[in-house]
């Protein structure tokens, strides 16, 4: 079997300004990221013949969840597209990049521009984070999947994921003191990333005494909404040889969904759909978890990153708590450096694309102060939680 995604490479990298309440037009942020990615690849807009995004421009959701869609960018840049795809029913946010890999592998496009823009910080203003359905008024009625959670005040993924963490605590003896290290490690790394939102030190004591959101989660277990856009160019390898930036190859992808796509009916509530994506990723490669030099794993909530660590086999199922305890193994100079840019918990909720961006930065050796030691050859970028999950195994060159 040919692993078709190996025909694809990531050749361009771009990211707009990232910050809290920037007050900038989300399409302007998007164009900043997209043009930077095209330029970074050594291409011009005339070379871009594919466009891919998550979640597309016409989705409801929290204010600022969707920053720009396919049509916005195609029109702003007057692109000539042979292939495009934008949507929300993807295997996680990075599903948009997996789609792009397939488009170049099958010959529908040569160079696909991929982007994800959020402006949740500006759109949601200075108040507390609102629950789903907030602002609907007295006539609001929950329908679809939301009817099974909203009537019970379970109005946020914070509640749904917190219950998975609680079940993990129950079955495996995982503790808050252990889970804390996802957040503490992220903050430790963010101190070395000039674009991170929160860079001041965070102690275990501060974590344990922080404001409770939904037990066992405190404020520091939840990511921070930001404005920002991240973009990539995904190219067919045979068209990528003479490009400007060091090549990052796609070794394999995981985009499976076997269990029920549900927050409460999934067969094992100590993990989530990402379990299936992780399994598929390894089934398409001879590389093994021990070969991975850096892991950039979604931490929209801290517990999701712990689930990814277990699902990807960096530790055994249920062993995530002891594995991260103390933070040495997941440190920048540890066994498996985790979320080297500060994750979404400290660097900001770029919604999945930030992890792939950082994985490529690390493989290129362009991480500056937050670069891992040595010369990393293999990285994983993974995004999504709950019923969504997708991941990419990447190699240098």
């Amino acid at each position, binding site marked *: 079997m040919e692993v078709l995604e190996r025909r694809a490479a990531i050749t361009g990298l771009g990211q707009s300004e990232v910050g809290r309440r920037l007050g900038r037009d989300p399409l302007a942020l998007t164009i900043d990221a997209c043009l930077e990615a095209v330029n970074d690849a050594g291409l011009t807009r005339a070379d871009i013949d594919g466009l891919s995004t998550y979640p597309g421009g016409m989705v409801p959701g929290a204010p600022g969840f969707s920053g720009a869609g396919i049509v916005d960018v195609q029109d702003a840049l007057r692109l000539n597209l042979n292939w495009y795809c934008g949507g929300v029913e993807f295997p996680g946010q990075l599903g948009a990049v997996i789609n792009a890999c397939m488009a170049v592998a099958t010959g529908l496009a040569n160079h696909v521009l991929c982007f994800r823009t959020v402006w949740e910080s500006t759109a949601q203003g200075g108040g*507390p*984070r*609102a*629950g*789903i*359905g*907030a602002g*609907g008024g007295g006539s*609001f*009625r*929950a*329908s679809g*999947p939301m*009817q*099974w*959670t*909203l*009537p*019970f*005040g*379970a*109005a*946020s993924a*914070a*509640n*749904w994921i*917190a*219950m*998975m963490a*609680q*079940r993990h605590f*129950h079955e495996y003896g995982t503790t808050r003191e252990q889970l804390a290290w996802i957040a503490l490690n992220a903050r430790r790394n963010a101190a070395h990333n000039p674009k991170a939102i929160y860079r001041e030190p965070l102690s275990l004591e501060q974590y344990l005494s922080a*404001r*409770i*959101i*939904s*037990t*066992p*989660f405190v404020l520091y277990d939840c990511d921070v909404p930001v404005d920002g856009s991240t973009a990539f160019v995904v190219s067919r390898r045979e068209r990528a040889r003479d490009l400007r930036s060091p090549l990052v190859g796609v070794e394999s992808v995981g985009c499976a969904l076997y269990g029920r796509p549900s*927050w*409460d*009916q999934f*067969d094992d*509530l100590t993990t989530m759909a990402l379990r299936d994506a992780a399994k598929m990723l390894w089934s398409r490669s001879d590389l093994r978890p021990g070969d991975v030099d850096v892991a950039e794993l979604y931490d929209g909530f801290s517990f999701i990153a712990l689930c990814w660590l277990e699902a990807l086999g960096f530790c055994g199922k249920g062993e995530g708590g002891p594995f991260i305890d103390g933070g040495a193994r997941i440190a920048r100079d540890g066994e498996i450096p985790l979320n080297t840019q500060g994750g979404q918990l400290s660097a900001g909720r770029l919604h999945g694309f930030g992890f792939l961006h950082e994985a490529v930065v690390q493989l290129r050796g362009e991480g500056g102060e937050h670069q891992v030691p040595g010369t990393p050859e293999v990285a994983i970028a993974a995004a999504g939680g709950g019923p969504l999950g997708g991941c990419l195994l990447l190699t240098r060159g």
Partner: protein
Amino acid sequence: MAESPMRLLPAVTLENQHFWTGGAQGELRFLCCALCKHLIHPPAPVCPECLSRKLEVATVSGRGTVHTYTVNHQPWYPGMATPFVIAVVELVEQPGLRLTTNLVNCPIEQVKIGMPVRVVFENHDPVWIPLFEPAL
């Protein structure tokens, strides 16, 4: 302790009315395959086990156990009273048949995974919200 959050109510449809209105008769109801008796939740037009399209409504005992829970402290809407307990209850009739719900009539510090619970209903005409309380 706030036992109940501000409730956003479900839209009652032909597909879900057995579930959201069964409380008027004190009954917790699910769609059920007429052939293999698999309980189907959320409602779907086909049995996921045997693919039969012959479905009926079944009443269950309303008994279950707390599979997991969280104490929510965050007011997701203006005026939402906190804290309150959100739980996933697994019903005794079928492994994996679960409901997200609230635990009521129970001090927060006594909530435990595995505790037996039973259904009680809270009426918001025409909807009856299934909540759970400790079963002795």
